[in-house]
């Protein structure tokens, strides 16, 4: 049995993109909790309920379960729930059992993401949701997707916090020799649960991903500044410019290409994770060809990670007597992230959290 990172409760997680949630029922699992998502008819407000009918546990996200206005009608025996999860109809009788309700989850739609609170609903504070404004802001164009991976979510955190793997796993796409060779700076803001890993390459080969999309010829100055707001949101602030071109003294930076690479790392169940990925840019925003190129090439890069992490999880599962890892300098950020996750898991499991 390979190592499984426990789930951190009392946290916000991305359950879906805004565009995925509508009048069709959508089923997702977050931290092992099965969810059904939909929008109300008039207001379009997202609703998230537990995806199991109280009667015989039929999944409410599955046909022939359907919406009747804002109510959800179980496709097995017709138990009907309102948006709060309260059962308002049972077949053949007037008395509705007092316990007939499914859990409803605090939900916030922000930055084109559907955030769901996993934990004690009384502790849910929408102000604590990390922002990713570039996903939904004027002046930015975003390509995005989601891939489920059959791996412990900790493996995806490891993967994203150490970009030196780009040189090897993503060579020919986003990786060049300089990524693995350039020292990193790691900062941990303990109280905020934020890990920042910065890699500044002064004189680097331009990977095809950027050469073809930006039109830069020759070598580049490439900055990769990771900001991981545990447990779910990861943003890579990428800056690419012709070699030697730096931001101006007044702080403006018109000669560089800024790309925000966003991931929502949402644990689905034990050994499964949703990999929400998005690439946002503030350059060539009206160039559809660039959009399609970035969509296709980033999807390829994501699938390289998906294949590698699926394989890694299967491989770890064959270890009969446990295993040891070896960490080196490139892992400084990943180790910090693991530790913060362990703390959040511990805090989320404490009953006294409820009295805060």
């Amino acid at each position, binding site marked *: 049995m390979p190592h499984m990172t426990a789930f951190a409760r009392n946290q916000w997680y991305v359950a879906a993109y805004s565009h995925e949630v509508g009048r069709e029922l959508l089923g997702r699992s977050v931290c092992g909790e099965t969810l059904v998502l939909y929008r109300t008819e008039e207001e379009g407000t997202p609703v998230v309920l537990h995806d199991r009918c109280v009667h015989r546990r039929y999944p409410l996200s599955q046909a022939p379960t359907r919406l009747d206005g804002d109510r959800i009608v179980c496709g097995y025996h017709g138990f009907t729930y309102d948006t709060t999860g309260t059962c308002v109809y049972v077949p053949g009788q007037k008395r509705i059992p007092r316990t007939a309700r499914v859990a409803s989850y605090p939900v916030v739609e922000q930055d084109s993401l559907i955030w769901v609170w996993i934990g004690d609903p009384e502790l849910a504070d929408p102000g604590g949701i*990390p922002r990713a404004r570039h996903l939904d802001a004027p002046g930015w164009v975003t390509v995005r997707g989601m891939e489920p991976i059959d791996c412990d979510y900790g493996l995806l955190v490891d993967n994203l916090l150490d970009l030196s793997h780009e040189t090897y796993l993503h060579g020919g796409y986003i990786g060049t020799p300089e990524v693995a060779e350039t020292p990193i700076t790691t*900062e941990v803001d*303990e109280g905020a*649960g934020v890990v920042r890993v910065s890699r500044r390459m002064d004189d680097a080969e331009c990977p095809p991903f950027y050469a073809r999309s930006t039109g830069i010829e020759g070598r580049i100055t490439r900055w990769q500044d990771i900001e991981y707001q545990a447990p779910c949101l990861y943003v890579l602030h990428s800056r690419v410019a012709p070699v030697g071109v730096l931001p101006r003294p007044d702080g403006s930076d018109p000669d560089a290409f800024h790309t925000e690479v966003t991931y929502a790392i949402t644990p689905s169940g034990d050994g499964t994770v949703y990999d929400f990925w998005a690439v946002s840019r503030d350059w060539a925003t009206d160039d559809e060809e660039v959009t399609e190129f970035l969509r296709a090439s980033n999807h390829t890069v994501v699938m390289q990670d998906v294949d590698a992490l699926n394989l890694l999880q299967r491989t770890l599962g064959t270890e009969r007597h446990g295993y040891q890892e070896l960490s*080196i300098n490139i892992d400084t950020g990943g180790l910090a992230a693991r530790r913060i996750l362990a703390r959040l898991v511990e805090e989320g499991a404490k009953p006294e959290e409820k009295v805060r």
Partner: protein
Amino acid sequence: MSGGTGEVYRVDWVPGTDLLHGTCHCGREHRAEDPVRMWEWMLAHPQGHRLPEDDS
């Protein structure tokens, strides 16, 4: 969430070397070649911390 608390730990990989240079939020500094040991030192704050001049 990203507002921060002021308690920031920092680890610099010293360019041209295999060394890590750590700075605790209390200002104490430390050098190590192994990130696991670096974090052990950092998180033991203030236990085992030495003043920067002690490292020279």
